């Protein structure tokens, strides 16, 4: 028996592993790129998380570290799954090679060690490259984030040691795990299994009408559950049950859709012989049919991932997109404060007037009387104290804000301003009345109108009642009104310095800020971070799903070389083969994407129902933007795939 010297064995093992990498460059390259890609993404993200500049420039958001923390966990999970997937993909392609070593007489232990070291070395090299690339990229991403937040902080990134440590720890765990998997490969399979790993031919899938029908039914049920209107009584239990079932049905339904419904439809299209037996359609249909089983799981994951990403992107982008509108609703005027005597008021006024870059467009006083009142019906909103404003004040204020709502009331009528963050409609108040209670007796006013333009910053309870001028004057005699001073200035979205001064002087008159700018900026920063995080994660998912299809198609291309060679011999021109590849790739990319978009539209409809602050905001533009963005990136992957596929089979 021959016992090689330990050192010598090490050396030969190492050089054998190195030769392997050289020889199988393509397979290694794909796996390697996956590793580097995951590391770059993860490192970039953590380095952003730890960067002081980013932390500093967010003066007002406290949700940041929470958001980053949660996203970081999602990212770790995702990266781990992605690497494991691509590792198993890579291993499958190498089973035969491993079998060959065993046949040639290498001991199992030697082979196992070789695979272990190979994976370890590759992982470590990828880690170094990943961190270097990540450092460069994180600078770019930080600039994007700061741009989104609208801050002017200059970006100067050093290397974050915390981020490096965290990245190294996370990936060393993953790499060690895959290396151990590699070590165990030779022990897990019989020699014969290793040899025939790639030979297992795919068979034509059988048509199962039952599972196709179940698939469609499940999809219909889940769509119905998602789309059905909210019940009157809205509980967490209902939420969990209804949407839990909906999403499980959606998941299984999607899988069955790809597994059976598409098979069934393709089979159906084969029935029409005069169409099917014409040109290259026969080749495409049959190839797709053969591949669909193997692709069903991938398609499901991709459709669901892309729909989740579109949803997140759409929802967060609409938040970002509609921030100005939301801020305007919460703080209608540029500055508002409670009058505290002429001296104080003029002090505030002089600050605002001193800002020549934001000249005053309108300036008015809004007298408000706070009274107790009772509604003639049950409303699940705490209305007291009710804030009364007069008809003329409301009309003037609405006019100053460029709102085209006016109120005209006769003496005893009242109009309600829709409480913010609620969805009460006109019909809720129609035919009802409100009784204002004053120490000197009460007066009953019928509701004749509901308006949506608020004139003062939000403060709970947000129940404003517009009453006629006469009524207001009458009540004012008994209950002294408070006076709010409000200013509307030009270009309020940039009034940073003045807002700071006003805020400092005025203090907290309302639950929200007294200046529009502060509210606007706060919302913008918060939204920018969510948008950035979801955008970043979306990009990762997108790139990952695109790459998965790309890799799958390339593997398929390598397997299909013979297939296309036969076709060329039979007399299919290169041009027709290219067309045929385009059609097949379009199907492979288009199908999961279409399903994903459909799912996301349904889910977004639900989201917009659910999040009341999104109501009334135009969701179409942001959602379309997210979808178009998605389609464009997929299109890039499509072109890339078609080109490479074509190069492989149609040289």
């Amino acid at each position, binding site marked *: 028996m021959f016992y090689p010297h330990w050192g010598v064995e090490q050396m030969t093992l190492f050089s054998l592993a190195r030769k392997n990498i050289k020889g199988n460059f393509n397979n290694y390259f794909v796996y390697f790129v996956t590793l580097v890609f995951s590391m770059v993404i993860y490192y970039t993200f953590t380095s952003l998380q730890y960067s002081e500049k980013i932390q500093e420039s967010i003066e007002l958001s406290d949700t940041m570290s929470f958001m980053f923390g949660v996203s970081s966990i999602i990212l770790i999970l995702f990266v781990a799954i992605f690497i494991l997937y691509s590792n198993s993909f890579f291993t499958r392609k190498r089973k035969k090679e491993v079998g060959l070593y065993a046949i040639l007489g290498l001991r199992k232990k030697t082979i196992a060690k070789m695979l272990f070291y190979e994976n370890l070395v590759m992982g470590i090299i990828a880690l170094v490259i990943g961190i270097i690339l990540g450092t460069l990229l994180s600078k770019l991403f930080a600039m994007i984030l700061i741009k989104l937040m609208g801050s002017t902080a200059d970006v100067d990134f050093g290397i974050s040691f915390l981020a490096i440590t965290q990245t190294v720890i996370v990936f060393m765990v993953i790499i060690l795990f895959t290396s151990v998997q590699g070590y165990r490969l030779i022990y897990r399979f019989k020699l014969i299994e290793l040899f025939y790993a790639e030979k297992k031919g795919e068979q034509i899938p059988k048509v199962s009408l039952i599972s196709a029908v179940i698939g469609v039914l499940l999809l219909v049920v889940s769509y119905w559950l998602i789309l059905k209107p909210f019940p009157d009584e809205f509980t967490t239990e209902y939420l969990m049950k209804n949407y839990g079932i909906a999403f499980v049905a959606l998941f299984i339904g999607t899988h069955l859709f790809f597994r059976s419904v598409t098979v069934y439809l393709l089979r159906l299209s084969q029935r029409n012989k005069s169409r099917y037996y014409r040109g290259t359609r026969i080749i495409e249909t*049959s190839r797709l049919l053969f591949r669909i089983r193997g692709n069903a799981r991938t398609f499901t994951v991709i459709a669901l991932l892309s729909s989740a990403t579109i949803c997140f992107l759409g929802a967060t982008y609409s938040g970002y997109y509609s921030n100005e509108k939301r801020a305007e609703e919460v703080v209608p005027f540029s500055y508002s404060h409670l009058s505290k005597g002429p001296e104080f008021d003029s002090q505030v006024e002089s600050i605002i007037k001193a800002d020549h870059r934001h000249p005053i467009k309108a300036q008015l006083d809004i007298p408000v009387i706070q009274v107790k009142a009772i509604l003639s019906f049950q409303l699940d909103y705490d209305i007291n104290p009710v804030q009364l404003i007069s008809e003329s004040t409301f009309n003037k204020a609405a006019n100053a804000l460029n709102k085209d709502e006016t109120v005209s009331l006769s003496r005893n009528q009242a109009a309600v301003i829709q409480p913010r963050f609620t969805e009460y409609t006109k019909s809720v108040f129609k035919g009802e009345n409100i009784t204002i209670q004053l120490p000197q007796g009460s007066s009953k006013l019928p509701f004749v109108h509901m308006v949506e333009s608020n004139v003062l910053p939000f403060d709970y309870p947000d129940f404003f009642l517009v009453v006629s001028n006469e009524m207001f004057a009458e009540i004012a005699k008994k209950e002294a009104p408070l006076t709010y001073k409000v200013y509307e200035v030009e270009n309020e979205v940039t009034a940073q310095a003045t807002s700071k001064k006003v805020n400092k002087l005025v203090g907290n008159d309302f639950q929200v800020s007294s200046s529009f700018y502060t509210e606007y900026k706060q919302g913008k920063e918060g939204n920018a971070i969510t948008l950035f995080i979801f955008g970043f994660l979306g990009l990762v998912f997108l790139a990952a799903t695109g790459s998965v299809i790309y890799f799958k198609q390339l593997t398929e291309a390598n397997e299909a070389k013979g297939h296309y060679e036969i076709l060329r011999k039979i007399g299919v021109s*290169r041009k*027709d083969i290219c067309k045929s590849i385009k059609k097949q790739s379009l199907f492979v990319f288009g199908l999961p994407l279409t399903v994903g978009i459909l799912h996301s539209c349904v889910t977004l409809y639900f989201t917009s129902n659910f999040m009341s602050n999104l109501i009334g905001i135009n969701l179409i533009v942001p959602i379309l933007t997210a979808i178009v963005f998605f389609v464009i990136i997929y299109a890039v992957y499509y072109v890339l795939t078609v080109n490479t596929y074509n190069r492989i089979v149609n040289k």
Partner: protein
Amino acid sequence: MKTIVEAKQIKKVYGAKGNVFSALEDIDLTVMEGEFVGIMGPSGAGKSTLLNILATIDEPTTGNIVVDGINLTKMNEEQLSAFRRDKLGFLFQDYNLLDTLTVKENIILPLALAKLNIKELERRADEVADKFGIRDILNKYPYQISGGQKQRTAASRAIISKPSLILADEPTGALDSKSATDLLESLKDLNEQDKATILMVTHDAYAASYCNRVLFIKDGKIFTELVKGKRSRKEFFNKVLDVLSALGGGANDVI
């Protein structure tokens, strides 16, 4: 009688400066309509290169080829594809069937690509299926049938578009002797009854004995030619064996 193949001064050189290997040197070949011609020779003699050039899969370095009145050297890729589809039928050692198509779909593929109307297509599919006795397996997939059945499927595909020339590259190479004989008999019938023109490259003297004429190639040149004439197949077989032993080297896998 019509001339189907007219190849003149075919030369094929591989490699670049300094390291040149010539696979074919000044080959002249003429095949008349209705002939069944065999090409034999030791490994590396250039048989397959010649067949590939005639099949327009490969290009000659110099020389001129006319098949059924069409000059191959002057066509572009698109025209060559159309030419292969309309004028040539192929039969290969490894069958070259598409595993994603049923036997029937494999057979009718050339017609589907030529966009023939469905009625004519079905009629011809039935016709060739009967000829090769594969009617029962029309709806099976290649992975479900035997080697002999696969080769008969391939042969059906080769003749379905009524090509001017059928090119066969070691068609019996992967078959057991019974299946090989069946296939050769079918080719012979095709040749005699339908006047099909067949050019077959083979290693096997037994297969070659089914031809009307056998060309022997050695080192890229035509070594000799045997014509069957009035001889019986058995006599012709012995003649082929004689030439092969004279040819030597590489032909030692003869029975």
